[in-house]
């Protein structure tokens, strides 16, 4: 027999409950749905994307008219419920009386309005529903519009960012010392404030409002207690919510802060249930969606006569503001017996903090890189013992020994509404739908859902969802560990070296849990480079961790002989140098003398024991090592420029020599080749070099990220500068950024692919402070690096290493 169910409030919680109900008990209930808003259930969480213009209202509707029709729901939207008569079991609406067998109250919450003088002026609104959103959006249409948001919590900041995206000039007023103090600690709040300010939002923390100022009944500004006034056309109050209990209270139900419910979501009246933001369960009220969905399931079960229990879980918070990745879960107040693990990377704006109590993780705050949020959240919820992985805990699940959890299994276990992409608020089911609709590649998914299309930190998660949905049809591009000695990637290790101030290879291997005693032929050269790059002057270069070419400062040839290439600055040489080279070639019976593509001369076929002598001879003629073997600066190729060429616009040769003199000797992740062409005819082939300069009448066009080896890649233009000095500063900066950020053996173009040209331009071109700092770090490192390796190795102490330890052929000949 069909029974009558009345639901008051068409929000996300009751909507979810109805879905469960229609699924498990189709046709069992005759449902009447009241809603104060003149519309049905939409995804309130997505109001922020609607506000910022990323979505339309139509896109965030959860249940449309067809859905209600298909399930025979009688919709009484926009009709106010006057009262509930529990004795008669009827609900009295403005348009008539409806009887019920069961009643569900889901009246949600009301935004709390601070009763400041002027709070009832026109233009003072909360941020709660679609109407508020539309009011804010309408403001963006007016040029020069100004808005104030009171409240630097989740909702207030989303409102501020959304209005800013609509072109409104926004000021956030927050009474506490840092933003989102309930979810974030001070450090993360600080990073968030910086990020919002970078978007152009003014943020005032520790600011007390005294009065909302009005003119002709409409808001025109806000007065703070320090006497300052801020003008505005709209004032949004987003300081919190209060459960909406008016109706329940009037009908005599037990009410505290919210409507009292038991574990089955039943109120003090057995025929009446309540759920959502209007309830109070065991003293707690609710504001985030996850527990409300749990309540919806329990309420549906209760209505179906099945036993069910609501158990509140830890909830996590993510902010839906593009470009601000933050995540927080659990309790992170400081306290006795609590310990912190903190990771900071100021350059990348990354901050992570874990709070432990005994062996358990009880809180996590992350800013900038929130990829591991779901994992930490799981550890908090499950009260897992984390003592075994405490040392590496902060680096997330990838770095834990063994296989504590299959990442795919963890993703498989996520519910459909689990948010995968924090930037765009995309949940798992949206991605799954897109994949089932034919999206088979990451870029398809990005194009169709925007998931991982903003900051990209959730790319891994999206790929895992794809792997699960497509099965064998999709290959997850897992991050490759550095080598078999460690599960860590190159980037992980670089991060650890910096964050933990690891200054020796032993320290890296110890602290990062290397599985081998002294690494392997892959990781040792990489670590040697990272340490050398990150701790100039402190770390002692380890010859035994270098490939033979770099250890011998010569290129080994297939027969075990070596090649010797002296530097020719900018490709310029002299008769004296050529004579010295010719003499050396004769004296040491050089097999082949070759002119290289880098505008210098290669002497091939030198025996190992002759190396120190030939170097000494070339040194004596004023030449130094060309480092033709190095993961470092090779050559700066030039054309003749204004010295001789009728087309030359600048002194390309002179500039090339200056660049080579400034940059030689530095170690880089992979080889670096440069060129300077005196005019756009580009005779020095600058557009296939790691750094290429093309001179023009008005200055110098700086190109980066070219290659012409295994991979042919034209350069991208980084910027144009006016003077040679600027060329040198920009070049030092971009090389330093590459040195600091790239993985070992990664050529500049590859690194550029990974980090994006925009990032490089931002750090080297746009941000002058950053550029100068990079150039300074480069020049500091150069003070340790610019020593001719030949001159050092011709000293007696080194010479022995080039000779055999013993020669039994002589002994036998005696």
């Amino acid at each position, binding site marked *: 027999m069909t029974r009558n169910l009345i639901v008051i409030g068409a929000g996300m919680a009751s909507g979810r409950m109805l879905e469960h109900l229609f699924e498990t008990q189709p046709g069992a209930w005759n449902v009447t749905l009241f809603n104060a808003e003149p519309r049905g259930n939409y995804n309130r969480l997505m109001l922020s994307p609607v506000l910022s213009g990323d979505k339309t209202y139509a896109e965030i509707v959860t249940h449309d008219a067809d859905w209600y029709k298909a399930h025979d729901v009688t919709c009484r939207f926009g009709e106010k419920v006057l009262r509930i008569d529990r004795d008669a079991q009827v609900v009295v609406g403005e348009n008539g009386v409806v009887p019920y067998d069961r009643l569900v109250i889901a009246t949600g919450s009301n935004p709390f309005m601070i009763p400041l003088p002027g709070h009832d002026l026109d233009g003072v609104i909360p941020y709660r529903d679609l109407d508020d959103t539309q009011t804010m959006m309408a403001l963006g249409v007016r040029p020069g519009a100004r808005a104030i948001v009171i409240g630097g919590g989740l909702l207030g900041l989303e409102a501020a960012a959304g209005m800013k995206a609509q072109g409104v000039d926004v000021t956030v007023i927050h009474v506490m010392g840092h933003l989102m103090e309930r979810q974030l600690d001070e450090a993360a709040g600080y990073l968030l404030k910086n990020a919002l300010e970078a978007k152009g939002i003014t943020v005032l923390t520790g600011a007390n409002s005294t009065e909302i100022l009005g003119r002709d009944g409409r808001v025109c500004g806000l007065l703070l207690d320090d006497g300052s006034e801020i003008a505005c056309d709209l004032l949004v109050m987003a300081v919190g919510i209060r459960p909406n209990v008016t109706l329940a209270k009037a009908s005599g139900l037990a009410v505290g802060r919210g409507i009292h419910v038991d574990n089955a979501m039943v109120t003090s009246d057995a025929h009446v249930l309540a759920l959502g933001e209007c309830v109070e369960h065991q003293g707690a009220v609710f504001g985030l969606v996850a527990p409300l969905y749990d309540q919806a399931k329990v309420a549906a079960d209760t209505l179906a006569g099945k036993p069910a229990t609501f158990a509140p879980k830890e909830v996590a918070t993510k902010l839906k503001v593009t470009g601000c990745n933050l995540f927080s879960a659990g309790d992170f107040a400081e306290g006795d017996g609590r310990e912190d693990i903190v990771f900071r990377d100021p350059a990348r704006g990354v901050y992570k903090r874990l709070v432990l109590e005994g062996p358990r993780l009880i809180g996590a705050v992350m800013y900038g890189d929130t990829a591991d949020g779901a994992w930490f959240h799981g550890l908090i919820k499950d009260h897992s013992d984390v003592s075994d992985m405490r040392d590496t805990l902060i680096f997330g699940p990838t770095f834990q020994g063994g296989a504590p959890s299959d990442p795919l299994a963890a993703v498989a276990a996520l519910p459909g509404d689990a948010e995968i992409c924090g930037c765009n608020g995309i949940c798992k089911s949206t991605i799954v739908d897109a994949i089932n609709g034919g999206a088979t590649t990451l870029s398809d998914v990005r194009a169709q859902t925007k998931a991982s299309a903003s900051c990209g930190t959730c790319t891994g998660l999206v790929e895992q969802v794809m792997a699960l949905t497509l099965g064998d049809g999709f290959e997850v591009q897992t991050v490759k560990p550095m080598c078999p000695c460690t599960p860590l990637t190159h980037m992980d290790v670089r991060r650890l070296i910096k964050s933990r101030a690891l200054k020796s290879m032993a320290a890296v291997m110890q602290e990062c849990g290397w599985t*081998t*005693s*002294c*690494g*392997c*032929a892959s990781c*040792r*050269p990489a670590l040697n480079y990272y340490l050398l790059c990150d701790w100039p002057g402190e770390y002692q270069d380890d*010859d*035994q*961790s*270098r*490939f*033979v*070419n770099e*250890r*011998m400062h010569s290129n*080994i040839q*297939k027969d*075990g002989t070596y090649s010797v290439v002296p530097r020719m600055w900018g490709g310029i040489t002299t008769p004296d140098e050529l004579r010295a080279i010719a003499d050396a070639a004769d004296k040491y019976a050089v097999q082949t003398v070759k002119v290289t593509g880098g505008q210098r001369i290669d002497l091939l076929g030198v025996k190992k024991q002759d190396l120190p002598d030939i170097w000494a001879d070339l040194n004596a003629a004023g030449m130094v090592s060309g480092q033709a073997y190095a993961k470092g600066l090779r050559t700066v190729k030039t054309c003749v420029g204004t010295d001789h060429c009728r087309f030359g616009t600048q002194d390309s040769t002179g500039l090339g020599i200056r660049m080579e003199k400034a940059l030689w000797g530095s170690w880089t992740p992979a080889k670096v080749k440069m060129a300077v062409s005196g005019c756009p005819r580009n005779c020095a082939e600058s557009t296939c070099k790691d750094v290429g300069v093309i001179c023009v009448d008005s200055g110098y066009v700086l190109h980066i990220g070219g290659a012409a080896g295994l991979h042919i890649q034209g350069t991208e233009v980084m910027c144009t500068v006016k003077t040679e000095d600027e060329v040198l500063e920009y070049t030092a900066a971009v090389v330093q950024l590459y040195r600091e950020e790239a993985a070992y053996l990664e050529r500049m173009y590859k690194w550029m692919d990974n980090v994006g040209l925009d990032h490089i331009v931002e750090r080297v071109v746009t941000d002058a402070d950053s550029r100068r700092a990079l150039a300074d770090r480069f020049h500091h490192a150069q003070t340790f690096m610019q020593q001719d390796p030949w001159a050092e190795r011709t000293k007696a102490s080194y010479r*022995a*290493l080039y000779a*055999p*330890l*013993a*020669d*039994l*052929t002589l002994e*036998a000949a005696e």
Partner: protein
Amino acid sequence: MTDWTDIGALTDIPERGARVVKTHLGCVAVFRTADDEVFAIDDACPHKGGPLSEGIVHGRSVTCPLHNMVLRLDSGVAQGADEGAVNTYPVRVEGGRIMLDTARLRRGQVA
């Protein structure tokens, strides 16, 4: 028959490095590991004859500098998917001096 010959001091070889001993049968690479163990093997990779003494030493293995074949220093056998082996020679350290058994390396000792 053994013929222990003093070929130099342990400290003549850098840690995790190697030096060569020239013989009529080609060069022998004498390795010193991070733990000061000493091993002697042919200085020619079974792959393309690369000078193993110039390779990177890790644990009890060396990676050939030419094409990255990894060989065990104690057994002379190639690791991983590669096949091949080099000769190994008895060697020991006495009072800081490296003693190499040169019995098989002397002229005319070839079988």
